[in-house]
C-alpha cells in the first residue's frame, strides 16, 4: 500500500506539473510533449487502479494516435517552428480565477463526500471482463460509438479537404 501511495504521489506530481506546462508553455510543440507526459501518467494511474485494458488503450490511442495527430496539426498550421509568445490570450487572469473557483467547488465537494473512502484490495478488471461488458450490456452504446467515429471520420474529411 505504501509503495502504491508513493507511486501515486510521484505520478500525480508529474501529471499536474506537466498539465500546468501544457497550458502555460509558450511553445506549442512543447505543450504536445508535456501532454504526452500527462497521458502516460494517466495510463499509469489506470494501472494502479488495476484497469489494464484501459491503460493499454490509453497509451495506444492517446499517445499513439491523438498526440501524433496534434503534432500533424501543429506542423500544418505553423509557419516556422520554435517558440512564439502569442499562445495565450489576454484573459489569463479571468481564466485563472474561473479555474481556481471551479477547483474550490469541486475539490471541496469531493473532499467532503469521499473523506473516508479507502480502497481495499482492488480486483483487477481483465480484458475479458471488459469485452464481455462491451459486447453484452453495452453493445448498443458500442455500436453508436462506432457510428459516431465513422461520422467524425467523414466529417473531418469533408471539412478539411481542399475542393
Amino acid at each position, binding site marked *: 500500500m505504501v509503495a502504491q501511495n508513493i507511486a501515486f504521489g510521484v505520478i500525480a506530481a508529474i501529471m499536474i506539473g506537466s*498539465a500546468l506546462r501544457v497550458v502555460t508553455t509558450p511553445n506549442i510543440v512543447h505543450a504536445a510533449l508535456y501532454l504526452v507526459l500527462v497521458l502516460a501518467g494517466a495510463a499509469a494511474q489506470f494501472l494502479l487502479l488495476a484497469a489494464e485494458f484501459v491503460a493499454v488503450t490509453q497509451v495506444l490511442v492517446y499517445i499513439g494516435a491523438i498526440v501524433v495527430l496534434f503534432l500533424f496539426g501543429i506542423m500544418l498550421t505553423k509557419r516556422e517552428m520554435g517558440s512564439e509568445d502569442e499562445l495565450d490570450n489576454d484573459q489569463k487572469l479571468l481564466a485563472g480565477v474561473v479555474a481556481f473557483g471551479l477547483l474550490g467547488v469541486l475539490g471541496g465537494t469531493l473532499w467532503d463526500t469521499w473523506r473516508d473512502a479507502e480502497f481495499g484490495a482492488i480486483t483487477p478488471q481483465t480484458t475479458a471482463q471488459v469485452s464481455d461488458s462491451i459486447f453484452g450490456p453495452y453493445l448498443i452504446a458500442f455500436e453508436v*460509438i462506432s457510428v459516431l*467515429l465513422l461520422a467524425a471520420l467523414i466529417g473531418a474529411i469533408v471539412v478539411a479537404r481542399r475542393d
Partner: protein
Amino acid sequence: MLLNQFLLLAAVLFCIGVYGVLARRNGVAVLMSVELILNAVNINLVAFGAWHGDVAGAVFALFVIAVAAAEVGVGLAIVLLLYRNRQSIDIDDVDLMKG
C-alpha cells in the same frame, strides 16, 4: 490508497484543462486542454469503477477515449480549415458572433 486522491487529481487536471481552454488563443492548444479535461473524466470513471468493483467504469472510459479520438479528428479538421481561410489559428480572430 484513498479514493479521494484520484478524484482530487482528476479535479486538478480538470481545472487546469478549463484554464487552458479559456486562456489559450491557439486552436491546437485549446484542443489539447480539452484532452486534459477528458482525461480527468477518465480517471474519475476508472477510479469509481475500481471502487465499486464494476467493469462499467472501464467500459465508459474506453467510450470516452473513442469520443476523444473523434473530437480531435473533427477539431483538428476545423483548425486546418480555419488556418486555410485565415492564415491563422488564433481563436480571438474568430469573432463573427461579435455583438
